[in-house]
């Protein structure tokens, strides 16, 4: 995978694989190209060279909604929820691509549209139950504390019933208790819902505990790839994080 924005090279010849049902972490110093990598998988950025193979099909250019339809869902580092809408409505938007009835049918709330709405509501309630956010079901998202907003963000991604879940710094800005909660949810998603997870994270202890395998990026290049233990003792990784005297 190679991605450049004019003269700025974000990714340079990065290749790695993600096995089904594993938790894969992408780590690296700031500016290493981690979010760009996620955006490429998701279809937000189109790479100049390289392609993404998902479930056997290899494609170079993919659009975000196509990726979503294939079963790839993601969260955003800075939270991209609809601040004025309630938690419930935000999660329902996660079901958007699965809604088959047309606008007129939904507006008139006729038989088939009503049945479909109830189906979606049921799935969303299961996600609410899973994430333990019943008590803020009807609260406008903008009024929630940061930690809860991140959980709702995760909820919206889960509502789409993804096979591949991309998490962009899910623990950013959280205290120890919130990180423990989020870690538990991520493990449960992987375990109970069977989703494959790719996550970008800075907190080393979270990465070491949660992930099965790790990819390390630095200045757009891949510098290590392996299990957490292998990566932790890799000299190139240590140099990248701590810096080397030139």
């Amino acid at each position, binding site marked *: 995978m190679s991605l450049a924005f004019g003269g700025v090279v974000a990714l340079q010849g990065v290749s790695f694989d993600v096995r089904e049902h594993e938790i894969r972490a992408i780590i690296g110093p700031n500016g290493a190209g981690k979010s760009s990598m996620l955006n490429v998988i998701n279809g937000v950025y189109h790479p100049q060279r390289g392609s993404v193979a998902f479930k056997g099909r290899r494609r170079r250019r993919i659009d975000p909604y196509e990726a979503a339809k294939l079963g790839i869902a993601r969260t955003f580092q800075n939270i991209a929820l609809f601040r004025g809408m309630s938690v419930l409505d935000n999660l329902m938007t996660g079901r958007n691509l699965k809604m088959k009835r047309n606008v007129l049918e939904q507006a008139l709330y006729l038989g088939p549209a009503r049945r479909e709405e109830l189906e979606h*509501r*049921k799935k969303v*309630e*299961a996600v*609410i*139950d*899973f994430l*333990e956010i*019943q*008590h803020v*079901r009807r609260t406008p998202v903008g009024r929630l504390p940061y930690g809860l907003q991140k959980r709702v963000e995760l909820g919206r991604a889960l509502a789409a019933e993804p096979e591949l879940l991309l998490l962009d710094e899910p623990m950013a800005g959280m205290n120890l208790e919130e990180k423990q909660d989020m870690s538990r949810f991520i493990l*449960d998603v992987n*375990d*109970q819902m069977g989703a494959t997870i790719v996550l970008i994270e800075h907190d080393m202890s979270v990465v070491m505990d949660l992930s099965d395998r790790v990819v390390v990026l630095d200045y757009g290049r891949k510098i290590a790839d392996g299990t957490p233990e292998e990566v932790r003792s890799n000299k190139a990784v240590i140099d990248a994080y701590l810096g080397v005297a030139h």
Partner: protein
Amino acid sequence: MQETSRDTFPRLLLKQAEIRPHRPAIREKDLGIWQTWTWAQALEEVRSLACGLAAQGFKRGDRLAVVGDNRPRLYWAMMAAQALGGVPVPLYQDAVAAELAFVLQDADIGFAVAEDQEQVDKLLENIPQCPKLQHITFDDPRGMRHYPQSELMSLDALQALGRDFATRNPEFLAAEIEKGGAGDIAVILYTSGTTGHPKGVAQTHAALIETARVLVAFDGFTEKDEVLCYLPMAWVGDFLYSYAQSLVAGFCLNCPESPETVMTDLREIGPTYYFGPPRVYESILTQVMIRIEDAGWLKRRMFHAFMGLAKRVGMDILEGRAGVPLKDRLLYRLGELLVYGPLKNVLGLSRIRVAYTGGEAIGPDLFDFYRSIGVNLKQLYGMTETCVTVSMHASGEVKLETVGRPMPGVEVRIAESGEVLVRSPGVMMEYHKRPDATREAIDAEGFFHTGDAGFFDAEGHLKIIDRAKDVGRLADGSLFAPKYLENKLKFFPYIKEAVCFGHGREEVCAFINIDMAAVGNWAERRNIPYSGYADLASQTAVCDLVRECVEKVNRDLSADAALTGSQIRRFLILHKELDADDGELTRTRKVRRRHIAEKYATLVDALYSGKESCFFETQMRFEDGRIGTVSADLRILQAKTTSATAQRKAA
């Protein structure tokens, strides 16, 4: 219902399923909607649970521990145990593993039903010390997939096992229920003792059912009533008011979605009967007052104007007293439309016919507030050992300072020492495995010694002063009733908890816990920044606020010759809230006086030795059981006292 002397809870369940099979028996909010089970359906669930337990080897007389939030399946598990002639032992869901160990051993628990993974983990932790515990059934399967322990089974699997057993032995359950007698023990409830280990109070079917019948008759409960079950299942109140009463009267129990959603669920259900300790009513009122402060000018004006009217005439209207001028009546009606009605609606209290409080004294402002807007709030008095019911206010005879008249069938006598003695059908059978404590508590004539000091007023209402052993004397011999003082302090919204010292001392000093929500809001209005509880508690402005409250209490005390000596001279504000997890409060949030005096001995000394401040470090326990330290430099403050003569001159 005839055959009152033979009734057991399982027989009552059968009766309800026979008389009103299609009426709702219990509801639970799950996945956002209320799911209802009728009496007939409830019976089926209990049948499969009971047969499942029997298949696992549950015998007559065995104990079943039940631990979790209020869930239909946990209530059914209790009924199932009783149907087999066993005894359910409900436990507090927020107890830590070590606390559970004592009860599990004391009650010889072999079978347990837990709500979810959290409770299962606590039980598993205790298995090494409690080898008898061999069957743990869990309701919520979340997180339970990878547990290898052979003791575990899901409730679904247990019920499947039970249905299978029932098909092979169709007459089994009916036969077992027939074998049960009214004199059998129906439940063992562990009292969260303020001193030492908890004691298991064993109550029979007869005692509980008889008491429930009296209560149902007293307030006229029918099958149409609705009750929200949000109080701990381990507490006698929930067992009596929810479980027992619904089996006697046939009304519906409603289980909230989770502890955090209780207030919204309250609004959705609109119960007709409500019980809560004063704390709950207080927190509701605090939230209302906070939100009023945030409301627009017009709403605030309306609120304060109509609340003023309610204060003047509301209670008279509620009691149906004559002498309220027509103009006021009409205004009150208008108030009902504009203010009281919507307020009650938001709080979920619109359909309340009777609301009770008890367990501790309630503040006058609080009590008056609810009654003045038309919520029929009354007090009651009792304890686990007497099936709660000793005395209750009858509608129309409600007085703030008393706890009502003794209930029908209850004899109350005041001993020489001032201790309240009770004899009634509801008095417990015994303390489980504690014949010594039982002998101490119930005397030869069958009177239970409550341990509370009280007296009867001119109209035959009972008044409770304090725990008999806590009523002390100051160094000069004058009366020192710490609970009385603490209650007066806690009546202020800014003070959440208080502990007073003074027995055998020259003067009275106090520890005070501020109420984070109320004081935080107060501080924000005055643009006082704070970083957390400890920080807020140490601010000068907050110290002054609390001092004002203490001084007001002192003024009130100075009006009474017997109490003027108890005025609070010095006090300090604690940097951490007193907590049940640290052993400072009981699980029902009563102060553990002796424990606190020992733990904070340094601070008590500082109060009495005239120091200005004192550095103190405490250990506190986080909710997952880990221990951390909190330290602070606490300021000791003087409060002005009013002399008795000055007060009388002013009057």
